[in-house]
């Protein structure tokens, strides 16, 4: 039963990812895309954690944590690029 709930959650997250990717592709502007990318990172965290629950394995914690860190850095970099062009100045 529990597995089925996790599967359901995975399905929900999949829809969520699809919506995000649709926004990513549609744009229309760069900030929209970056925002969608940021959201995609968050969705990825959710997916990873659900996968960990599904497999009953806690080996995915670091991956989730890292996605959080890296997603943030990536978003900051793009945003900075949009603002200033140069991200390390």
């Amino acid at each position, binding site marked *: *039963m529990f597995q089925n709930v996790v599967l359901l*959650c995975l399905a929900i997250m999949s829809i969520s990812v699809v919506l995000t990717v*649709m*926004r990513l592709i549609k744009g229309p502007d760069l900030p929209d895309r970056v925002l969608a990318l*940021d959201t995609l990172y*968050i969705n990825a965290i*959710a997916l990873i*954690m659900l996968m960990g629950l599904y497999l009953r394995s806690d080996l995915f*914690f670091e991956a989730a944590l890292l996605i959080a860190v890296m997603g943030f850095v990536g978003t900051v970099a793009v*945003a900075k690029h949009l603002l200033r062009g140069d991200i390390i100045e």
Partner: protein
Amino acid sequence: MDTPQWLEWLVAALILVGSLFALVGSIGLWKLPDFFMRLHGPTKATTLGVGALVIGSMLFFSAQREGISLHEVLITIFLFMTAPVSANLLAKAAMHQRLKRTERTRGEPWKQ
């Protein structure tokens, strides 16, 4: 180790809530008419979405193994710290790019 039934139910509820909030965020992202409004969807809903998931996961793994598993909370803490900053930077970028906003928006963004 067997997980108690009630805990499984609780975890299931939590992750379901989390997933649904994440979905709401994405729906917002897709549905809302301008960038500044879309900004609200993910930065909020997904924080709680992931937050609920994290709590669920914490409970689940604490029951799975000896001791408690709290380290997932770091993910949430981290997201709480970073999400506003991302949003802030994105908003700045959007203002810099003078993105169109829905006509009914009140107030003016600043010129960057």
